[in-house]
C-alpha cells in the first residue's frame, strides 16, 4: 500500500516557511505564497504536519493507511 503523503491546505497556509525549513527530504517549496509538497519526494515523516502552527498540513486522502 502506498504511504500517505503530506498535503498543504492552501486555503489555510499563511506562508511562514516553517514546514520548508524542517523538511528532511527538501520536499516542500513556497509557490505563489503557499507551501506546496512534492509527493514524489515526501517520505511521510510527519515533521511538517507537527510543525505547522495552525495545522494547515494534513495527510492526503485520509483513508490511506501509513
Amino acid at each position, binding site marked *: 500500500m502506498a504511504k500517505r503523503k503530506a498535503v498543504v491546505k492552501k486555503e489555510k497556509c*499563511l*506562508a*511562514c*516557511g*516553517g514546514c*520548508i*525549513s*524542517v*523538511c*528532511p527530504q*527538501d520536499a516542500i517549496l*513556497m509557490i505563489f*505564497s503557499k507551501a506546496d509538497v512534492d509527493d514524489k519526494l515526501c517520505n511521510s515523516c510527519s*515533521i511538517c*504536519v*507537527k*510543525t*505547522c*502552527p*495552525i*495545522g494547515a*498540513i*494534513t495527510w492526503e486522502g485520509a483513508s490511506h493507511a501509513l
Partner: protein
Amino acid sequence: MHYDAVVIGSGPAGSVTARYAAESGAKVLIIERRAEVGVPVLCGEGISQKVDHYKVLEGTRWIATKMQGARIFSPNGTMVTLAAEYAGNETGYVVYRDIFDQELARGAVKKGAELMLNTRAVGLLKKNGKITGISAQQFDETIDIEADVVVGADGVESRVGRWAGIKTTLKPYDLETCVQYTLANIDWDSPYCDFFLGKHVAPGGYVWVFPKGKDVANVGIGILASLSEAGKAKQYLDKFIAAQPALKKGEPLRILTGADPVAEPIQSVTDNILLVGDAARQVDPITGGGLMHAIEAGRYAGETIRKAVEKQQFDTELLSEYETRWKKAFGKKLHRNYVVKEIMLDMEDKTLDMLADSLKDYKFEEFSTISIIKALVTKHPSLLVKLTPLMKLARA
C-alpha cells in the same frame, strides 16, 4: 544582465547587504519574490535601540513605540524587570516591520542598488562547476541573472545555501513555530515588552506581548517544533489570551504564522556565495531575535563584497572575511546562548520560578553572568547544581 552581486531577498539582511555593497560602487541587484517589500509582516517587531547606531533608517515612521525595557513572567507569575539597556536585542522599539523593511530597501536603492519584485530565485547558474549567477521566475517568465556573488538573504526557508551544498535544514529542536495576533481594543498600556514562560504557556518557547500604542499590541507565541503537534501553537496562544482579562476583548487587526530558527550558526560562505540573516541562522537561540544581527551581518557582507569586487576575487578565501567578522562580533554569543537554551529547556517550571524569585529584586547594574548567578544561588542554594553548566560557560 551581469551584476557584481545579486541579493536574494529584500528583508533586513538583503537590503543592508545591498546598501553597503552599492555604496562602494558595486553593481547590485536585489530580487524579491513578493509583490511588496516587507508584506506580509512575519515578526514580533521588537528591536534594540542599538539599531540607531547603524544609521540605515531615516526618520521615525517605522517606529510604533519606544519601550522602557522588558518584563519576564515565570510560570507562577513572578516578574523580573529589565531596563532597556539590559533587555537584549529585542526591546527598545516596537516597529512597523513593513515600513521598517521598506525604509531599509529605500536606503539600498538610494545608494544605487536595483530592486526587482515578483521575482523568485529558482536555482543557481553554473559554468564548468563555477557559480555564475541565478535563474529566476519573474511573473510568468524565466530569466537568467549573471553575478559574481550570489547573496542568500532568503530567510528561514533559505534555498540558496542548499543549492550551494550547505546544510541548512533545521532540526525541529532548532525551530520555534509561531503565531501572532496584532490585537486592538485591549487594556494594555505598558512601556514594557512582556515575556511569559512555562510549560503550560508555551512549551520550549514563550508568549510575548509587545505594545504598539495605547490599546494595540502584538501578542504572539513561539513553541519548539519538536514539542509541537499540528496547530498546537495557535491553541496555546488562544488559551493564553482567553485567560487574560486585559487581552481577551481584543480584536485582531492581523494574524500571522512564523518560523524562527534557534539553531547554532552555520557555514555562511562558499565560492561565490554568502548567506546572511536568518538564512545563516544568525538568530539569538534564547530570544529568537534576529533583526539586529541581520543588519550587522548585512553590513559586513556588503563591505566584503566591495573588497571582492575591487580585487575581482570571489572565492571562499576572500569571502571568508565576512564570516570571520560576524563570528567575531556575535558568533560566540550565539553559541553561548544556544547552550543556555539547552539548559533552560531541561528546567522544570519550579526551577524557573526559583530563578525569577531570586532575580525579582536584583538591580541589573552589575550585569555579568557571574554576579547574577551569585544573586541566584544566595537565595536558592539548590539552584547551584542546575546552574553549574552556566558557570562553566561564564568562565570560558
